[in-house]
């Protein structure tokens, strides 16, 4: 199901997802019920769409002010996988949506996510199809554009991807990195995982803890932002919660190295590191 299917991005991306083989059964835009976009029927509400069609996943192209309500509607309708592509969703709305899931078996990804692709099968989101090819490497990325960069380079080096997940680079995201690591660890189609991280937050530090305790598959990483201008100071409260000195590229690289994760110095170097593990 495509939320915001009648907008420019919604229409274009719906066509590309259909071309790629994604089964799109419904679109939702309030006030546009009865329209058909790229052969997909449009409904006014999520409730109407899930009643008429069997919906398992949903992708958002709605503007930031409308994202919270749309997410609540999808969660309440029991949609199992929700991918929020929308950028600039207010942080407190993200926190409300995350709380609204409240233990239900619903996976929300984003915001500012490029989406999820299982190359050769289907994609949910905006990832450009020609950057990906089928294979056995899992990719988790905070950045959309870098997930494309790393995937096309992997493919060129002979390594296709089992699945690529863009979790989004906002300060608060719906699904943290360790949860995606967990899914790749138990996925029989994945042999190794690439983490694409960046400066800020503690996703990579938490990923390192998870890898140390639970991962048996090899993991390699690239962390963007070594030369980024110094970040705005975290402030006292941030330091009290996260711990002093976390969030820098150096802290992330050290945490990952300590648990045996090889670090690429530039994006395309992940290919050599993967080759080292898989031959």
């Amino acid at each position: 199901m495509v939320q915001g299917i009648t907008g420019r991005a919604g229409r274009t991306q719906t066509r590309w997802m259909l071309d790629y083989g994604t089964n799109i059964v419904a679109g939702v835009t309030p006030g546009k019920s009865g329209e058909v976009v790229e052969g997909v029927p449009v409904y006014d509400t999520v409730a109407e769409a899930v009643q008429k069609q069997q919906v398992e996943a949903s992708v958002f192209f709605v503007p930031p002010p409308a994202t919270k309500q749309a997410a609540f509607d999808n969660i309440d309708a029991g949609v199992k996988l929700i991918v929020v592509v929308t950028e600039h969703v207010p942080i407190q709305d993200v926190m409300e949506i995350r709380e609204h899931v409240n233990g239900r078996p619903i996976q929300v990804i984003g915001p500012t996510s490029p989406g999820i692709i299982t190359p050769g099968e289907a994609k949910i989101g905006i990832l450009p199809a020609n950057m990906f090819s089928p294979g056995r490497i899992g990719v988790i990325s905070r950045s959309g554009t870098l997930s494309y960069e790393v995937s096309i380079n992997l493919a060129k080096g002979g390594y296709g991807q089992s699945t690529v997940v863009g979790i989004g680079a906002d300060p608060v995201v719906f699904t943290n990195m360790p949860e995606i690591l967990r899914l790749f660890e138990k996925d029989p189609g994945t042999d190794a995982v690439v983490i694409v991280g960046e400066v800020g937050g503690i996703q990579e530090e938490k990923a390192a803890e998870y890898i140390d305790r639970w991962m048996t598959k090899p993991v390699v990483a690239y962390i963007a932002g070594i030369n980024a201008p110094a970040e705005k100071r975290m402030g006292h409260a941030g330091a009290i919660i996260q711990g002093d000195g976390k969030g820098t590229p150096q802290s992330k690289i050290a945490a990952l190295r300590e648990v045996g994760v090889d670090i690429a110095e530039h994006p395309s170097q992940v290919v050599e590191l993967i080759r080292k593990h898989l031959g």
Partner: protein
Amino acid sequence: MLENNPMRLYEFEGAELFRREGIPIPASALASNPAEAREKAAQVGLPVILKAQVLTGGRYLAGGVHSADNLDQVEEMSRRVFNSRIRGLPVERLMVAHKVDGEREYYLAITPDDYNGYPVAILSAEGGVAINTTARQRPEVLVSHPLSISKGLSLDEALQMSSEVKLSGTEHAEIASVLFKLYQVFRKYDATIAEINPLVRTRDGRFLALDSKVEIDDSSLFRHTDLNLNQQSRMLNPLERKGKEIGVTYVELDGDIAMISSGAGLGMATMDVIGQRGKAANFLETGGGISADLLYKVMDLVMQKPGLKALFINIYGGINPIHEGAQGVARYLKEHDVKIPIVAKALGNHQEETWEIFKAAGIHVVDGVSTEDGIDLLMGLIGK
């Protein structure tokens, strides 16, 4: 840094939000020149504290905070502050606040725990500039509670926190009440941080917030138009301000290789790769809003920095129609006499179309698929 830059408020703006929610603050007024400072000091009552209104922490150590006992002193001190720069920032306004003698200092804050995705309330029975050290060395004076964003911070929970840091008597209830109100500031105005450091108890038993640190989530500004917060005016660098105006993130750097990217992560990676062989002149990322018009304006922006040796364009067609963006770049080059080499790596949807447009405009299009390939080509062109 690059995607969600919270907007930091001036102390007086934060204090105004405190006042609206009923958090007690000392009598104060703003002045924009020494004569006005004198006048306001007489109104708020001597002695006074003069505080430079600049968007940086550490103002006290940088010479931005002074006390004055009489009006001549007020005028002299404020002249000195107006003529100075505080951590490089010019001083346009002074806050003239009645000086309060505190007997005891507390620290209060509400901020999201980003990783766990919920707000956290923090209360320390000892505040002041050494709060980080206090938190590390004597964790027992400080308590933090995770909160439900839908339920918020109840007065009961605030009282409980007050008990946990062993406050008693009037101070127990008063501090809890301020913490409760601070949560209202956090929630009502989409703050990414609402902090009081210090809150003091005065000799005559009042509780006053002597400083405010409030940052507002800039993604939420669409619902806070009443606050009249002008983001552009806070950016002192003219090129960075221009970037904000056209809707992109531009950060000026001190190198000579200009850069345009279509995402923050890609932009940072590009800077990292440039940094291995040279120095970037800027960071620029467009986000998902590329159009011909936007990239025309972006070209106009990055080319304004003097002394450039080359430009690297690194863009992906995911949600962005890069073939349209390329038209904007081509139009800019047709209308302007650009002498430096331009290298472009453009991949994704509409990549072949984009390459044709770039090539016709005299741009070197990268053959490979990595940013490193692009920088190799670029360094070759400028003989590095």
